[in-house]
């Protein structure tokens, strides 16, 4: 299969990848942070600004109709891409963070009672912890975390045992942004359903790397981010079961989310527009539509197969680096490699790798609890995408070697 997948072919579509950093060819291994954009996405954004800038849903003139068709067309594309069931179940947000906060404020906040619990896991991103802490603090509820194994896998039996009647919502990453663990979200959804606990899945890191089928997963809420899916910044979406969207009160008040406004009372629009007050990031979502088309053109199945080969190759290569410690060895894992080299601080690693052209992230990766679990303040992280290559992995390992010799 992978013989058929030629990353060099796709690399040409990404202008940044032609770039040099400190005189070396850029090796962009920070994809879990944000992904690079293919030319078609850049063109879609530019095309809107150049040819038909207008607000959506408010204007009957030609520019407005063209903009509305492109913007709502992106919703259709994303709905198909995620097998969302219906386009009306996709609320556009500025990213995963807003999507999760929407659920926190509009779903959880009005429901939570003192003593209630929200169950997350030890490997969550802050975006899937702090919103729950904020609404818990206002309601007297608490947030608890299911533990993980030293390999970085969720302890499913412990998760199940923690699904007590006090739990009013569970929230789990589909894929960990730090250690790449792919959680069995369909199985988790079944567990939650059988206990009557609604489940939110944080899909930020899943959508760019594997086929996400919302009908198959069976969760209640799914949050995703456009800029990690090779789309523009400031885009994302919340998918939710229809009954939740109907029942939830609106979040932001403003234009486009109402039917009628008066000082005696206001009537709200239907979902998804009920949750989309104000002028959206029109250019961004039009670009996200183009990103979805682009990814579909390659095929997520092929992307996933290639990336898992690349992950195996990179894992082997890293394990050959003396003194290197790899965090997270889940059986089912996306191409994210968190590591430290003995005697070298993560930040020095990142700075010195950058001098060799290799962009990795260092720090806590917005996952303090996971850092605490591993007992380290920070790690370096290489996160790969389908446009990365074995040659880049080799260059990365050579650079690591140099850094190690310099500092350790």
């Amino acid at each position: 299969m992978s013989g058929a997948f030629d990353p060099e072919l796709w690399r040409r579509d990404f202008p940044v990848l032609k770039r040099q950093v400190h005189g070396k060819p850029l090796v962009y291994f920070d994809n879990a942070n944000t992904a690079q954009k293919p030319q078609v996405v850049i063109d879609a954004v530019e095309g809107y600004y150049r040819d038909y800038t207008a607000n959506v849903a408010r204007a009957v003139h030609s520019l407005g109709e063209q903009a509305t068709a492109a913007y709502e067309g992106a919703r259709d594309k994303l709905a198909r891409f995620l097998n969302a069931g219906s386009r009306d179940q996709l609320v556009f947000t500025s990213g995963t963070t807003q999507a999760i906060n929407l659920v926190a404020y509009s779903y959880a906040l009005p429901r939570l009672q003192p003593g209630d619990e929200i169950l997350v896991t030890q490997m969550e991103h802050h975006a899937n912890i702090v919103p729950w802490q904020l609404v818990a603090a206002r309601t007297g509820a608490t947030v608890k975390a299911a533990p993980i194994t030293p390999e970085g896998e969720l302890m499913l039996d412990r998760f199940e045992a923690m699904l007590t009647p006090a739990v009013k919502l569970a929230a789990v990453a589909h894929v960990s942004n730090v250690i790449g663990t792919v959680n069995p979200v369909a199985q988790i959804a079944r567990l939650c359903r059988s206990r009557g606990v609604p489940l939110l899945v944080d899909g930020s890191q899943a959508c760019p790397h594997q086929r996400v089928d919302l009908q198959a997963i069976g969760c209640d809420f799914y949050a995703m981010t456009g800029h990690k899916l090779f789309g523009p910044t400031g885009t994302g979406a919340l998918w939710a079961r229809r009954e939740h969207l109907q029942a939830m009160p609106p979040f932001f008040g403003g234009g486009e989310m109402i039917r009628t406004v008066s000082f005696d009372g206001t009537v709200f629009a239907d979902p998804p527009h009920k949750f989309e007050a104000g002028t959206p990031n029109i250019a961004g979502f039009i670009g996200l539509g183009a990103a979805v088309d682009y990814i579909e053109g390659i095929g997520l199945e092929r992307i996933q197969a290639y990336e898992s080969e690349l992950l195996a190759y990179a894992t082997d290569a890293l394990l050959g680096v003396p003194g290197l410690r790899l965090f997270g060895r889940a059986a089912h894992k996306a191409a994210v490699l968190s590591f430290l080299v003995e005697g070298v601080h993560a930040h020095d690693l990142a700075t010195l790798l950058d001098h060799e052209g290799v962009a990795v992230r260092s720090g806590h990766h917005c996952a303090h609890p996971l850092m605490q679990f591993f007992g380290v303040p920070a790690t370096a992280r290489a996160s790969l995408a389908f446009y990365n290559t074995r040659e880049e992995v080799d260059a990365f390992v050579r650079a690591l070697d140099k850094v190690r010799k310099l500092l350790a």
Partner: protein
Amino acid sequence: MSAPALYRDIVLEHHRAPRNHGALAGHTHAADGVNALCGDSLRLELRLDAGRIAEYRFRGECCAICTATASLLGERVLGLDAAALAPLQQAFEALLRGEAAAPGLGGLAALGELARYPARRKCAQLAWATLSAALAGQARTTTEKDPA
């Protein structure tokens, strides 16, 4: 100004001189349709006789497309059995989606240009929605469905 095809003669004509316009004393069915997004509001009054639409009257503050549709709709449905309306409405919706006009649509076929004006479709749908509401015994309806 040469009228754009959406405002073809028959539409303009029904806008200027709407048929079955006004109030209907002794109506058996009635409904108000509003679309606050557009600012259209329509009052429809009917008299049914053994299931047939024997009389039809409308009035309201509407745009030309809405008025013409209400007028053309009245012409088309007068005398029809209320139970026979569903396929007609489906044919009209197909027209709005850009399909060729079904022969049964009569004068309503003049509104086929709306396929190219998604933002204006609700203007034509309001008359239909109000008619359905009146027949269903609902006092009020709206075409404020969100943009799609």
